[in-house]
C-alpha cells in the first residue's frame, strides 16, 4: 500500500467507527428516552403496551394506601384527572400528600400504572420542573406547596 492508501484506510476506519457510534446513539435515543406525561395528557397519548414513561403530578390527598408490606398505592393528579400508581419499595424522604412527584414505569394490563421509581426531590420548595411547568399551564400552580 502506498502512504496515501494507508492514510485513506485509517481515515475510513475512523469514519466507520464514528458512524457506528452515531448510529448507536440515535438508536438508543429512539429506544431508551422516556416521555413525560401528566395524567391529563394520557388520553391523547398513544402508548405502546409496555412502553416506559414518566408520569408526573401531585400526590392526591387521601389516596395513599400503605399495605402490610412494602406495597404502596397512591394517585397522581394534575387537578383534573388522576391515575392510580402502584409502587413497591421505599418512598423518597420528601414524598407526601400534595407534593410534586415523578414516577417512572409502565402501564399494567389493568390500566394502573406500575412504577419502579418514584422521585421527589431534595429541597422542601422543590417541584419537579416538568410538573411545575405543566401545572402553571393548567393554572393550578400555587407558589407555596407546603
Amino acid at each position, binding site marked *: 500500500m502506498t502512504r496515501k492508501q494507508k492514510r485513506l484506510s485509517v481515515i475510513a476506519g475512523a469514519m466507520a467507527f*464514528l458512524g457506528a457510534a452515531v448510529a448507536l*446513539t440515535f438508536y438508543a*435515543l429512539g*429506544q431508551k428516552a422516556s416521555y*413525560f406525561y401528566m395524567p391529563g395528557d394520557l388520553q391523547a397519548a398513544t402508548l405502546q403496551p409496555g412502553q416506559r414513561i414518566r408520569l408526573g403530578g401531585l400526590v392526591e390527598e387521601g389516596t395513599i394506601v400503605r399495605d*402490610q*408490606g412494602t406495597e404502596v398505592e397512591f394517585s397522581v393528579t394534575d387537578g383534573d384527572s388522576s391515575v392510580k400508581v402502584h409502587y413497591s419499595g421505599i*418512598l423518597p*424522604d420528601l414524598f407526601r400528600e400534595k407534593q410534586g412527584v415523578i414516577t417512572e414505569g409502565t402501564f399494567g394490563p389493568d390500566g394502573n400504572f406500575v412504577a419502579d421509581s418514584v422521585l421527589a426531590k431534595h429541597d*422542601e420548595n422543590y417541584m419537579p420542573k416538568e410538573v411545575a411547568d405543566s401545572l402553571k399551564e393548567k393554572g393550578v400552580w400555587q407558589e407555596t406547596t407546603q
Partner: protein
Amino acid sequence: MVEIGHFALVLAFALALVQSVLPLAGARSGNARMMATGGPVAITGFVMVALAFAVLTLSYARSDFSVVNVWENSHSLKPMLYKITGTWGNHEGSMLLWVLILTFFGALVALFGANLPATLRAGVISVQGWIGAAFLLFILATSNPFTRLTPAPIEGRDLNPVLQDIGLAIHPPLLYLGYVGFSVCFSFAVAALIDGRIDAAWARWVRPWTLAAWSFLTGGIAMGSYWAYYELGWGGFWFWDPVENASFMPWLAGTALLHSAIVMEKRSALKIWTLLLAILTFSLSLLGTFLVRSGVLTSVHAFATDPSRGIFILCILTIFIGGSLALFALRAPTLTAGGIFHPVSREGALVLNNLFLTTATATVLIGTLYPLVVEALSGDKISVGAPFFNLTFGPLMVPLLALVPFGPLLAWKRGDLLAVGQRLMAAFAGALLVVLVTALFVDGASVLAALGVGLAAWLVFGALTDLALKAGVGSVPVGTMLRRLAGLPLSVFGTTLAHLGLGLTTLGVVGVLSFESENILSMRPGDTAEIAGRALRFESIDPVKGPNYTEDRATFALLDEAGQPYASVVSAKRFYPVRQMPTTEAGIRTMGFSQLYISIGDQTADGALVVRIWWKPMVTLIWLGALVMMGGGAVSLFDRRLRVGAPARRRKAASGRPGEAAA
C-alpha cells in the same frame, strides 16, 4: 464587616479588567513593562477574592443573619464544621469559591511562570483575566453573596440537610479545583493561538496543569459519587444525572487531553488536536457550570435556581466557547503539523484512546442535552437516563479498556503488535484464569459477569506487566531490577498507578452490577432477614435528638452461625425541623471491599418498618480505584521533566523570537 468583602470583590473585578487588557496589549506591542504588570495584578486579584471569601466564611461562622445569604443557608444551632462548609453549599458561595480557585490558578501561573516566554505568560494571564472578569461580573450582578437584610432576623433558615455532611464539605472544592484547573490549559491554548506559535515545550508547560486539574477532578467526582451513595439513601453510585454528567464530560475530555499532550510533548505530533482538546475540555467545564447553576435541566442536584443567572452564564459560555473556537478556526491552519507515525505505534494507540474518549464524551453530551433540544423543538418532555447511557457509553468503554494495556508497551513511531502481544501473554493468561475461576466458583456468576471481572483483571495485570517489563523482571538479576525500578521516571509509575486504578474501579463497577443482591421487606423488632448468606436481626428503633435534628435510629445486629450478634449497623431517618425536611441516613458496614447497606423507610399501618437491604460486593473499589488514579496523576506531576524549572533550557530558544510572534 461584610462590606469589606463586597468592596474587595469589586476591586478584584477592576483588577481582572486590568489583567485582561494590559499584559496582552504589552505582548502584542512588545512592551515589556506592560507585560510585567500581569503577575502582580493576578496575585493581588487572588488576594482580593480570598479576602472576600474569608469575610463570607467569617459571616457564616458567626451566624451573621443580617447577610441574606447566611440567613438563607445557615442556622445558629448547626455544628461549626457545617457552618463553615455551608459557605459553598449554596449558589452564591459556590460561585465565589469558583472564582477564588480561578484567581488562585491565575496567581500560580504568575508565581511559577517565570520560565515561560514572556509573551506567552502575559497572554495566559490575560486570558485568565477575561474568565475572571466575566465571572466576577456575574457574581456582582446576579449572585451577590454580600447583600444585607434589614432588619436582621434572629434565626437562619438552615442549610439543606443533605448538604450537612463531611462528604459535601470536600466534594465541591475538589471538583472546582478540577473544573477550573482546566482554565489554565484553556488560557495556554488561547494564548498560543494569539501568539500563533506552538511547540513541544508548550505541551510540557501545559501537561502539569492538565495532570493537576485531572487528578483533582478525579477525586472530586469520586467523592461526589460516594456522597450520593451514602447520603441519598438509594444505594446507587452513579445516576447519569445531568449534574453528574456535567462533571464527567470534562473528565473524559481531560483524560483525552492528558494523553494527547504526551504525544505532543514527545513527538511534536497532534499539536492542533491537543490545542482543540484544551479548548473543548474547559468549554465542557463551563457548560457544566451552566447546567448546574442555571437549572435548565431537571436534576437531583438542582437546588433553588433563577433564570436570569442562567442567561448570564449562557452569554459567558457563548462568548468564551464561540470566541475560542473562532480563534482556533482562524489560526489553526497557520500552525505547522508535527511528526508522522505509523498507525501501529504509541502515537497510534494514543490517537485511538482519544477517538474513544472524545466519542464517549460526545455521547454523554448528546444524552445530556437531547431533552433540552427536544423540548425546545417539539415541546415534548423526555428524559434520557441510565438505559441510554448503558447502551451507548458501555459499548464504547469496553473496547477502550481492553486496549489500555497495549498502549504503554508499544514503541513510539512504529510499534510491533505481535511482540507486544507476546509480552502481554502472562497478563492475558492471568485474566483468563480469573474469568474461569469466577465463572466456575462464584455463585450466580453469568458469563458476562465473569468476562467483566476478567476485563478488570486484564487492566490490573496489564498495568503491572508494563512496570515489570520496564524494570526487567525475570531477565536481569534482582539487584539490577530494583535499581532499574528506582531509576524509572515517576511518570512511568504514574501511568501504572492510573491504569491500575482504572482496573480497580472497573472491578468495583462489575462487582456491584453483577453480584449485588437486594432485599426489601417490612420488619418488626426481633425479626430476622437474610442477605447474601448473612443473617440480620432488627433489634430496635429509638428516638434520638441531635444538635439541629431529631432522628429515629434503627439498630440491626449481624448474626453469626450460632445466632449470636457480632456487629451492629445503625440506619436512621432524620428530621430537620427548621426546613421541615426528612433525610435518610443509610447504615453501612464495610467488610473487606464489600459493603452491607441498609436504608429504612416508612412505618406501615401496623407498626412495622419498611427496610431495604443491599449487599454490595467490591463496591468500595469504585472509589478506591479513583483514589489510586488520582495518586497516579499526583505521582506523574512530580516527575522531574515536568517540574516547573525543567523547561528552562528552552527559554532562550523560545524568547528569542518575540518579533516573529508580534508580526
